[in-house]
């Protein structure tokens, strides 16, 4: 670090970690943090004042700053497809999910686990059955996935969900669309069941609404369509149930909520008819995160199947490269 007048100020402000005395270091650190906080507060206040002043004068407020995030600066991706793309529409009109989206096929999902599931996994399955309206649980017993694919196809199922666990923690989800595929393999993490979510409610049996966020690339659209094909097309809005698949940086966050509109402007039921309508959420669970590992054409065949996309380690050379 260069000494001298110019170098001293940032040193004092920014680097209390260089101080060897622990007590002193703590003091300095606290002071620095306080200063930072103060500065930030002042910045915010100043900005607010400017905005207010501009509004009062009838001018346009200064433009809001857009934070520079990792996904905001993602690498240029050729595969971002516009929804009005003619070729995209032509393909979606005849792909594996076209029947579902044309409301010709109702979803019917077979849910099963790995062999000898733990109690925890079965609890997750139970909550998943509450999440998916057309889901049926079958014991895995000793059947292979290929056998189950055959079985489920013959009985008119449209998807097969296999849940895996490692050391009693659910860690994988295999989603096979039937009868023609594709097969998506997800890593499952950050699972929270209803009991672990404070204030969580029990879901009703209404058909939920579906929110799919940020599935923007060609691969993302395909995965999004596959996930959407698990749910019936006509939501019952009475139930105010929403299932969200939110993609952010290739992680798909799955959430399940019930919403309510507070029309009186507050929970206490204050008698102000002009107050804005508030929307409140209650989470219903389960809550988990999915990460796509591979997407294989056709039904499950790990040896002879052709991959549309499979994660490879050399894809992880940039933090700003996303595939969904």
């Amino acid at each position, binding site marked *: 670090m260069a000494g001298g007048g110019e170098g001293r100020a940032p040193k004092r402000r920014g680097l209390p970690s260089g101080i060897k005395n622990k007590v002193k270091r703590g003091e300095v650190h606290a002071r620095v943090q306080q200063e930072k906080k103060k500065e930030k507060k002042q910045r915010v206040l100043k900005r607010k004042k400017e905005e207010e002043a501009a509004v009062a004068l009838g001018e346009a407020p200064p433009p809001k700053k857009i934070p520079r995030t990792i996904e905001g600066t993602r690498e240029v991706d050729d595969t971002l497809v516009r929804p009005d793309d003619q070729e995209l529409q032509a393909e979606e009109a*005849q792909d594996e999910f076209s029947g579902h989206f044309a409301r010709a096929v109702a979803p019917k999902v077979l849910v099963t686990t790995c062999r000898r599931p733990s109690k925890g996994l079965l609890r997750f399955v139970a909550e998943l059955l509450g999440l998916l309206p057309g889901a049926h649980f079958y014991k895995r017993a000793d059947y292979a996935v290929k056998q189950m694919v055959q079985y489920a196809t013959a009985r008119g199922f449209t998807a097969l969900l296999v849940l895996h666990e490692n050391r009693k923690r659910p860690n994988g989800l295999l989603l096979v669309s039937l009868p023609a595929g594709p097969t998506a393999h997800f890593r499952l993490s950050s699972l929270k069941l209803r009991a672990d979510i404070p204030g969580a409610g029990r879901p009703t049996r209404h058909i939920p609404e579906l929110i799919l966020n940020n599935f923007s690339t060609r691969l993302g659209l395909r995965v999004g369509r596959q996930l959407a094909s698990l749910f019936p097309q006509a939501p019952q809005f009475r139930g105010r149930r929403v299932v969200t698949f939110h993609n952010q940086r290739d992680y798909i966050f799955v959430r399940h909520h019930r919403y309510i509109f507070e029309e009186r402007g507050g929970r206490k039921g204050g008698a102000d008819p002009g107050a804005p309508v508030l929307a409140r959420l209650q989470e219903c669970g389960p809550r988990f995160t999915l990460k796509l590992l591979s997407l294989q054409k056709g039904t499950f065949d790990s040896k002879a*199947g052709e*991959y*549309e996309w499979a994660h490879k380690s050399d894809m992880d050379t940039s933090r700003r490269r996303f595939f969904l």
Partner: protein
Amino acid sequence: MPRFSTLPASGCRPIRLITADELGYVKVVESRGQNAGPPEVVARWGDGGRGKGVERMQVTSSGPFGGLVTVARSDQTVELLDIASGQPHASFIATPLQTNGNKPSANTLNPATSQDAVRGIHLFQQPTEEAVQVLTCSRGGAVSQWKVPPREDGGAGGAASTVAEWGVGSGVESLAVDHKEQSLVVGGKGLDATLWSLETRAKLWQAKNTRPDALGLQTPVWVTQLLFLGGDGNRVLAATGHHQLRLYDVKAQRRPVMVMEYGELPIWSVAEDPSGHVVYAGNSTGDIVSFDLRTGTKSGGFPGSVSGSVRSLAVHPTEPLLASVGLDRFLRIHNTQTRQLQAKLFLKQQMVACAFDTDPARQPEEAEPPVEDEAASDDDDRPMRHVAASDSGRDDDGDLEEEEGASGRKRKSDKVGRKSEKRARSTKKHEEEEMDSDEEAWDDSDSDEEEGFGERKGGRKTEGRKTGESNQKRKKSRRNDDEDSKGEGFDGEQFGTYSDEESEEEGLPKKKRKSRSTGQSDSGRKGGRPRGKGVGVSDKRRISIGKKKSHKKRT
């Protein structure tokens, strides 16, 4: 140490490619050279839709009926399209009449299971009786030879009729016809490569599976693609779903003469290099590798191939280019010599096939480099196309080359391309002997560049004025000379151009400088980089050229 640790992107030469996809589109992709940016889709033929997906495609760049693209669709329609315009010449449904014992399946529309799905197609290059002849093979094993009579207006067309049909065994996945069109080979799941005569329609040869391994286990037969190697029709290469490449010699034996393994996943596509001893293979997670048939070993992979199954590989007959398409919806073009990815293009659909259109008349014109400096702008008779291209911002990798007329452009770019390849090779191996043959080219292009900069001082062009590895060569030759004759004047002569500048700059007496430079070059050789102010002449020169080069790369 190689001085060019990263290769400058040499771009993709002017090429024309035909691709086909699962939705049923046939797309024409053109690259207009390295100055024109990435390749583009210039035409799209056909309407995609259910049952229209392309299963097999064959491209014949030239022939008695002109260039034709033959596509077989999943509803068993075979279409002949004009390669230039995409106009359909003929179309017929290639459902076999009667197969030898193979029952036609009930579900004929599902190409994944249908026994009638077209698994192989071939358009005969030698027409008989003024008609185009097409060979198709169904999965059920019915090989049908179709005759498509000419239309009234002269093109191929009219109602197709079956000339012959015979059964070759069920489970066919691939069909190949040799270059002389005397025999065909089929193979598939449960059907090992089988050679049939096209004249007598008799079985000539059938492959035999490899011997069981030490555990007594036999690799099941699953041929995914077949290829005739060379022109003699004796060598057959089979890619298998059990991650093997099997090379058969029909004249030698029934078992493969060579088995090469790659990875653990099915190999879906193979292609042969024009050199005759290299083959390329692509597997179901998008890895592309090359094998040397002389040693039977993998000679390298192709980086930048991402993740989707490689469905088709195509090698350019004259240029060192390898095109690949697959389920990741990209077309990728690699240089087979440097192994670098030269261009890629998102084609939106899951691709099935690609092939080069090699007819010289249909090759796109090479785009010219953008206008860069003042010296170049006096070239007023530049074609409009070039100006438009640079205006639209397509050319942004502009080379600081000296501008030439449109006629000289092609020759020049070839030279640049050669140069980059050569550079790549020699940085790896320092093959100095090879450089001798190309020295003139080096001199030419170099002087061009420098005129473009317009700031050369001592105008004498000597052998020493070279960039890149010729510099190393120079050093080496000089070293040899030193050892031989202690640099009797040769040194001074060779670097005469610079000695003037150098003595002016450093103010050293000529004699002193000369002796010093020889000593310096020695130390430079040992220590890698010369240190201090007394940089040897050659080193100084090298640095300045290096700067110029890097500048050229950046702009």
